[in-house]
């Protein structure tokens, strides 16, 4: 089968590799119909995530048709068109019993801090991802969700990570009616966090980035205010000037370890890798939020350490919330929002690229060429299929 293949930082290609097999009675094999490149895939692509092995296939946002199932699978059958949450989770461990599916303790032998994730290095379990024609899906009765009949596949694939992560980012902010919410990052997750902040009753939503076309998009799509940080001297002062000197009620980090905007952080965290990425946005969040406010973090950071002003967070009495999204938990409500027309996730998709051109797709997304916001990879032969899921058999 055709699959994306990592060869080192900034180097990928498509290769033919052996199709995955059922390795556990709870597995399914899924034929991929859509897979996205996520902003966090770029951390792998840039060589920032430890234990990213040469030959890995990335991709944790995908939809597909079930081809075969293991002997223990009871609720999924060949032919089902499913969306697959990026978390690989068992549904029964101590953490899954608390609906913390992103923290599952049964699917990642290589690390305890994170659960299993498709195509996200051996630090997240050593699974191949969905940027391929076929993928092994463990715990098939637990993770995958059959796509509701009539749902656009482009909406469905964004339910596997980007939309739930953006929603959870806003939700972890504990937004109350009328709150001022500042979101750092105008990528897909930041865009969905902005939309979600309104659903949660925010009074004011402000998105910060430095990529002009993305700011233009989010201003229109999420009907929010925007700040181009290239034109801001000091972020904390700027936010305080916008909020009667107090700071925002909620600040949300949707950027993570490859943030621009601070030379020292970029040098130490990205160029020299002396910390787990650039903590620029964490600084901005802690210093721009009001006393007693909440900082919500969904941006991905490396596992080592980061220099952050934790003393300020203590003195301001902040609440810090963070986690990988617990995707399955959010799906019923987010599907309702899509079906009710409150969110149209697919509008963030700017590029639809053949899987065979995956190297170009990554470069376009990574370098923000051609006004790229979100890229969907389509395996050869799939592009002509209907774009909506058929009713389940």
């Amino acid at each position, binding site marked *: 089968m055709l699959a994306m293949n990592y*060869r080192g*930082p900034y*180097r*990928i290609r498509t290769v033919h590799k052996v199709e995955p097999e059922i390795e*556990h*009675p*709870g597995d399914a094999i899924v034929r991929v119909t859509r897979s996205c490149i996520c902003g966090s895939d770029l951390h792998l692509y840039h*060589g920032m995530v*430890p234990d*990213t*092995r*040469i*030959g890995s*296939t990335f991709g944790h946002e995908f939809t597909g048709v079930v081809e075969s199932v293991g002997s223990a699978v*009871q*609720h999924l059958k060949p032919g089902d068109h499913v969306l697959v949450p990026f978390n*690989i989770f*068992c*549904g*029964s461990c101590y953490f*899954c019993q608390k*609906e913390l599916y992103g923290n599952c303790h049964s*699917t*990642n*032998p*290589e*690390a305890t*801090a994170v659960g*299993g994730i498709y195509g996200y290095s*051996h*630090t997240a379990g*050593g*699974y*191949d991802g969905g940027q391929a024609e076929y993928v092994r899906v*463990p*715990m098939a*009765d637990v993770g995958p969700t059959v796509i509701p009949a009539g749902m656009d596949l482009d909406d469905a694939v964004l339910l596997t990570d980007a939309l739930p992560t953006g929603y959870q980012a806003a*939700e972890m902010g504990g937004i109350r*009616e009328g709150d001022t919410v500042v979101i750092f990052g105008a990528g897909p997750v930041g865009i969905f966090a902005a939309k979600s902040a*309104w*659903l*949660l*009753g925010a009074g004011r939503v402000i998105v910060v980035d430095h990529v002009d076309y993305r700011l233009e998009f989010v201003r229109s799509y999420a009907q929010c205010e925007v700040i181009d940080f290239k034109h801001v001297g000091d972020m904390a002062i700027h936010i305080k000037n916008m909020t009667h000197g107090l700071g925002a009620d909620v600040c949300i980090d949707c950027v993570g370890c490859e943030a621009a905007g601070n030379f020292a952080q970029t040098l130490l965290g990205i160029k020299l890798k002396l910390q787990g990425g650039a903590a620029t946005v964490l600084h901005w969040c802690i210093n721009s939020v009001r006393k007693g406010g909440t900082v919500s973090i969904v941006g991905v950071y490396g*596992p*080592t350490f980061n220099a952050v002003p934790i003393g300020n967070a203590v003195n301001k009495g902040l609440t810090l919330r963070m986690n990988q999204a*617990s995707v*399955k*938990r959010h799906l*019923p*409500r987010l599907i309702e929002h899509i079906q*009710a*027309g*409150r969110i149209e996730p697919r509008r963030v998709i700017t590029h639809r690229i053949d899987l065979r051109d995956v*190297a*170009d797709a990554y*470069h*376009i997304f990574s*370098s923000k*060429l*051609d006004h790229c916001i979100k890229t969907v990879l389509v395996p050869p032969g799939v592009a002509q299929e209907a774009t909506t899921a058929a009713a389940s058999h």
Partner: protein
Amino acid sequence: MDTPATSNLRSPSPSHAHIIGWGADIDRAMRPAYPKERTPPRLPHPVEPPQQQRADVEVLHSTERPGITPIFGTTLPPAGLSGRLRRLAFRHSENDLRHWLMLLLADRVQMGEGLIDDLSRGHVPNLYAEMGGRAELKHNPLGAARKAAIGIAAVALVAMALKKRRGGGRRLRG
């Protein structure tokens, strides 16, 4: 999975009337991840703990665990020098910086191993294509030209330096 009812949508405040869906989840009972920990989980079917997956390849596991997990990925088992570094790294816990630094080192070593593997199979990697050169040329021709110019200048400088060195060597010998 039980889903919260949608009957308590509030009317948006006048200033937010233009925002579709404003306040739909203002009530915390409508928020799917509130409270943070929720038991029992609202999964569509009852779930039994998974059987142990059979390990047919070498799978490293964190020293913070007693053994491998019931479910795991089997791709790309450790091999070669990078594999030895990874095994060393997994002697240290995730709490120990050496664990992560050795894994990063192993990643860089494996880049070289991957290159050697390619060449040994008679495959010369197309770095231009692998790094998205075609997309760069199409969507950022000026940037592509700048990179090409920098590359050519770097090669020219190296060539000049080598030539000068050889010339200097001849003079010394003469």
